[in-house]
């Protein structure tokens, strides 16, 4: 039982990080109807930024987070301005192709700047420990939990209590209405890319601290897609719940199934199997936006 709870707790904190990354994806999708294939590559860049600021610059973790967030904000702004803005109003397929290109470019740039070898900064995050009864929460999980939990909370407050947050939610509903109220849609788009890039980078620093950084870290993007599909494409709350579910499933599967099968890759597949089963019965995901229809 202790073993199971232990797996659930570490899975929970892993799941929150997935949720954070997935939220970035949902925000872009909601505000500008762009399906951002490159979300996982923000995570990759985040991991490398974490390495640069922690190892090369010897910054403490909080300064590293701040610097990485600032870099991510600039990166998000540039990406939106240079690659997405010219495509506003173009067919969906063209925009998706652009985000695929973006994924390749970010991957190439990462290799160019940081090289292809495995980077790690495992011991450089501060060590915290927490014991609840017989369960001990490992340090990385605790940091992941605190940082992503804080980020998610701040985002929720931002959307509900600031004017520009309201403008973003309104843009997700009806672009023309928002424009005729004087809200500049381009500003909302730019902000959505900044947020997506920042949360991706934060996720990258946290995940990189656990498993090290290499190009395959970008595959977290695929997990984020799974989270988003499971949670319902347009639901931020759904992304949080689904992220936690997938994180726990992955960890529990790793704990119980991997020893049974030689090779031990089942943990990575198991959440996707669950996702497929759920989607068969609830095609809009667990919390997909119900189209409001009055009778």
């Amino acid at each position, binding site marked *: 039982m202790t073993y199971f709870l232990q797996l659930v707790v570490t899975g929970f904190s892993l799941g929150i990080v997935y949720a954070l990354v997935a939220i970035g994806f949902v925000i872009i999708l909601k505000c500008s109807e762009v399906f951002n294939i490159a979300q996982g590559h923000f995570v990759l860049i985040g991991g490398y930024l974490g390495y640069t600021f922690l190892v090369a610059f010897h910054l403490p973790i909080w300064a590293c987070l701040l610097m990485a967030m600032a870099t991510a904000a600039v990166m998000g702004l540039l990406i939106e301005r240079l690659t997405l803005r010219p495509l506003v109003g173009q067919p969906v397929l063209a925009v998706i192709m652009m985000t695929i290109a973006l994924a390749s470019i970010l991957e190439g740039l990462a290799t160019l700047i940081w090289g292809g070898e495995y980077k790690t900064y495992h011991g450089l995050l501060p060590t915290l420990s927490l014991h609840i009864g017989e369960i001990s929460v490992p340090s990385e999980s605790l940091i992941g939990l605190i940082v992503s939990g804080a980020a998610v909370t701040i985002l929720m407050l931002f959307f509900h209590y600031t004017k520009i947050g*309201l*403008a973003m939610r*309104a843009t997700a509903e009806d*672009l023309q209405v928002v424009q*005729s109220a004087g809200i500049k849609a381009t500003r909302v788009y730019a902000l959505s890319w900044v947020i997506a890039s920042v949360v991706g980078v934060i996720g990258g620093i946290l995940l990189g601290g656990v498993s090290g950084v290499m190009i395959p870290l970008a595959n977290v993007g695929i997990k984020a897609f799974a989270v988003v599909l499971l949670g319902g494409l347009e639901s931020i709350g759904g992304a949080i719940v689904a992220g936690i579910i997938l994180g726990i499933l992955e960890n529990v599967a790793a704990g119980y199934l991997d020893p049974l099968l030689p090779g031990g890759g089942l943990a990575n597949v198991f959440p996707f199997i669950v996702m497929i089963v759920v989607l068969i019965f609830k095609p809009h995901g667990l919390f997909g936006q119900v189209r*409001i229809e*009055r009778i």
Partner: protein
Amino acid sequence: MLQINNIEVVYMKVIEVLRGVSLNVSRGKIIALLGANGAGKTTTLKAISGLLKTEEGEITDGSIYLAGERIDGYGPEDIAGMGISQVMEGRRVLEHLTVEENLMVGAYLRKDRAGVKKDMDMVFDYFPGLKRLRRQTSGYLSGGEQQMLVIGRALMGRPKLMLLDEPSLGLAPLMVQEIYGIIKGINSEQKMAILLVEQNARAALGIADTGHIMENGKIVMGGPAEELRDNDDIREFYMGLSTVGSRKSYRDIKHYRRRKRWIA
């Protein structure tokens, strides 16, 4: 205040929708723009508010002035800032937002928090039904309530000119009457000019100062609302009234010809 000079509008570079429309809206007046489907009423409104640009439409000739300043060529966000609010056809509420949040979106450009709060109370005064629903998700409101909400949202921007597109669409006659009463009230109390597009000619001419009839992208007739109300052609074609009791003689026979003359 608003002056439209002979504008022509083309969609997607081929479909000509407006063919020389001129129109004046003076301060504090209600101008009704009437006509059948496809006459170009909504396009006229979109040309003014700049929303045309978001739909691949383009003003190819003519000009639009607001208080002496040329505004065609600006995007919808800028024109909203100059004091024109458009209430689009079909009750476009932001469905998943609450009533209050919908109203706040209308006040997005305003910096005076106290004024915004006061205006929200003003909107609730005009539409008491909304006050009780302020925290409800707006997608679940009834049709009449949604129409009130979108008018209220436009009011929150404190515009000089409100463009109203078919506020009676799909509403019960009693509700139409109620909403038109409120529109008239807003116009006289707030001194707000209103350009009203309608199919429901009777309701529109009931509150308007001036009316214009559009057909095939042109204004074919215009004048003071009471004159239009009494005009036999308009009674027949747009209000569905024939001169009751009179012997059916020439009018029925000449129906086709008179109609044709207008379109040409």
